[in-house]
């Protein structure tokens, strides 16, 4: 296949070999870990900051505005400036807050989203850890974030924060189900939980095309549930600006607030990445069996571009949803999950099992 010419595995292996040949195995291991950590930290910060800018630009264009345009060329440095502002702001200590939990909460939230990114295959061979239970791992760690939100709401000793945190708890507990079940559809199709093999299995067409109706249904359910899981509008009940001022992070200021903010955007990136990887083929170029010339042309575009393009598409979809719809009420939110998404998902899984059994999908 043509896309293999962009395989990054030789590069990562050569770095690995270089470290192990020059250092003792313990030090080489530590150096490698540090290297990966630093690379991810920088990646995390840059993606987080530019997603904020992207969101501001997208919503501005939807609302007939220009958006940020003062700092740098068309406002490209705006979020960097915002970051410096947040770094310099006072960290207000709340007198009656639970100090330890109050300070720990933002880190729990940010670490949860950080852990998830580790398992995402960005391009061929560009993979921090290739678990054989990759999907399961991402689902598990991404739901740790709610613990941080609950702690933040509880320890702030603020009534609005508590309501926000409790809403968030109820929301994530229910929407976890839909996220898991909609991913299960593709797991049944592909027969693997490992993200790299899942991507490889889409070399002859993405699952959203190969899996036809159930996969498309599962994709939309996943995007909806994923939006809800990341506390984004129209499911932003945990912060519900017009009801709870700022929800669970009302009492946070400065960089601690920035952590929540960054984590929210990274969670969005994570959800979009998973959607892109599982449904839209991850870094795999668009292949249509039988059209050799077309496939070769598609292979010419590097996998990393494919990956970011697809992720950007899903992120745009989520932004589009957020900036169009009004917010749901808490009981409607739970109704949507338990009365609509969950039954649809369960029926969908039964249908998919039947389809796979009978082989009624494009192989």
């Amino acid at each position, binding site marked *: 296949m043509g896309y293999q010419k962009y395989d990054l595995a030789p590069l990562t292996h050569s770095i690995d070999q270089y470290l192990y040949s020059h250092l003792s195995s313990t030090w080489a291991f530590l150096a490698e870990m540090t290297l990966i950590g630093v690379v991810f930290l920088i990646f995390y910060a840059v993606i987080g900051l530019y997603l904020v800018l992207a969101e501001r630009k997208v919503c501005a264009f939807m609302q*007939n505005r220009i958006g940020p345009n003062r700092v740098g060329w068309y406002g490209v440095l705006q979020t960097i400036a915002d970051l410096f502002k947040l770094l310099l702001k006072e960290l207000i200590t709340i007198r009656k807050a639970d100090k330890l939990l109050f300070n720990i909460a933002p880190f729990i939230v940010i670490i949860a989203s950080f852990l998830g990114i580790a398992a995402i295959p960005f391009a061929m061979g560009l993979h921090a850890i290739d678990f054989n239970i990759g999907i399961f791992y991402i689902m598990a760690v991404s739901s740790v974030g709610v613990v941080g939100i609950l702690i933040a709401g509880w320890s702030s000793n603020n*009534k609005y924060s508590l*309501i926000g945190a409790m809403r968030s708890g109820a929301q994530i507990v229910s929407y976890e189900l839909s996220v898991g079940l909609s991913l299960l559809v593709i797991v049944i199709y592909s027969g693997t939980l490992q993200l790299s093999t899942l991507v490889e299995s889409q070399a002859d067409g993405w699952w959203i095309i190969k899996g036809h109706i159930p996969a498309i249904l599962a994709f939309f359910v996943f995007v909806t549930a994923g939006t809800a899981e990341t506390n984004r509008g129209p499911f932003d*009940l945990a912060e519900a600006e*017009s009801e709870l001022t700022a929800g669970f992070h009302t009492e946070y200021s400065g960089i601690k607030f920035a952590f929540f903010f960054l984590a929210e955007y990274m969670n969005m990136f994570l959800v979009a990445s998973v959607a892109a990887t599982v449904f839209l083929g991850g870094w795999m170029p668009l292949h249509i069996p039988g059209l050799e010339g077309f496939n070769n042309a598609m292979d010419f575009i590097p996998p990393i571009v494919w990956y970011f393009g697809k992720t950007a598409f899903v992120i745009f979809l989520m932004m589009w949803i957020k900036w169009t*719809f*009004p917010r749901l009420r*808490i009981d409607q939110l739970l109704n949507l999950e338990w009365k609509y998404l969950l039954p649809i998902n369960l029926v969908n899984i039964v249908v998919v099992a039947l389809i796979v059994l009978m082989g009624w999908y494009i192989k």
Partner: protein
Amino acid sequence: MSEEKKVIVELDENPEYIINMGPQHPSTHGVLRFEVSLQGETVKYLIPHCGYIHRGIEKMCESLTYPQIIHLTDRLDYLSAHMNNEAVSLCVEKALDIEVPERVKYIRSILSELNRIASHQLWWCAFGMDLGGLTCFFYGLRDREKILDIFEESCGSRLLHSFVVPGGLMHDVHPNFKQSIRDFIKYFRKKLPEYDTLLTGNVIFQNRTRDLGIMSKETAISYGITGPSARASGFACDIRKVEPYSAYPYIDFKEILYTEGDTFHRYKARMDEMWESMVILEKLLDKMPDGNDYTAKMKPVIKLPEGEYFQRVETARGELGVYIVSDGNKTPYRLKLRTPNFSNLFVMNKLTAGYKIADLVAISGSLDLVIPDIDR
């Protein structure tokens, strides 16, 4: 030790979860404070506390002459400034028994209707934003700008016009007046369906507002609710129909009435009023006489004869009553304003009890409260 124990017992005996919405809260649209008692997310009861923006306008009016009072009434319900100005002017004219030129009546009514549309547009923005649809805010403001431009062209100010004076108008309208309004109507007829597509038809919006905060006709009457909020409950209280003033007797128009009285129909009543206002505007523009008389003959110093005078008008939020007691001087002895929002506010407790905290925001948004009008 024993004291500590006592505190804990007291806390247990008082399981109410009271939160203060306001005076600084995004959804109260100003410095209004709701003391809300919650059971989980459900509102048990609600006490509105007003007075955070009390400026003593009624008292200030006692030391100002009648033309000077006009500029204070701008600051009651700043979104229907023109209608407020008109109310005081009409009351003074009634007291002096002055007949203003017909053209002035038409201009006043045209500007009133424009102001009503502008006010409802801003309400639509804020209502959408209360429910979490942030894009609504910008679309509404975008279209409202066109009306503000018309006002700026003719009156010189965008929000607080002070354009009406007892006996007529401050100065004549701009020569371009009729054309710019016709252009606006043409523009807004195209934009208003977009509002419906974006918000009214939206399934989330419908679920958030339908069968919510139902106000019966009896409640509306007993609480003194006026304006579109009352008309959504079937209470025909449009002063433009009941007690026509200015140019409203000359034209025929529809009064928007619904009988359901829920949040959605309060929304619908206002949306329909925007459509109806455009029809009224067209009719008024067609009938508006030409000429350039913009004021009746007035004495330089206005002194009302001794007595009591009352005049009411329909503002964008309901009935504004102006009650002047004069002792024959050039300043009023007492001026009482019956503002619509003050009455509309106190039904909140009855409407919200038993609903969720998110519904509280929706209901208060649908009543379209303007806080400076409550506190005066």
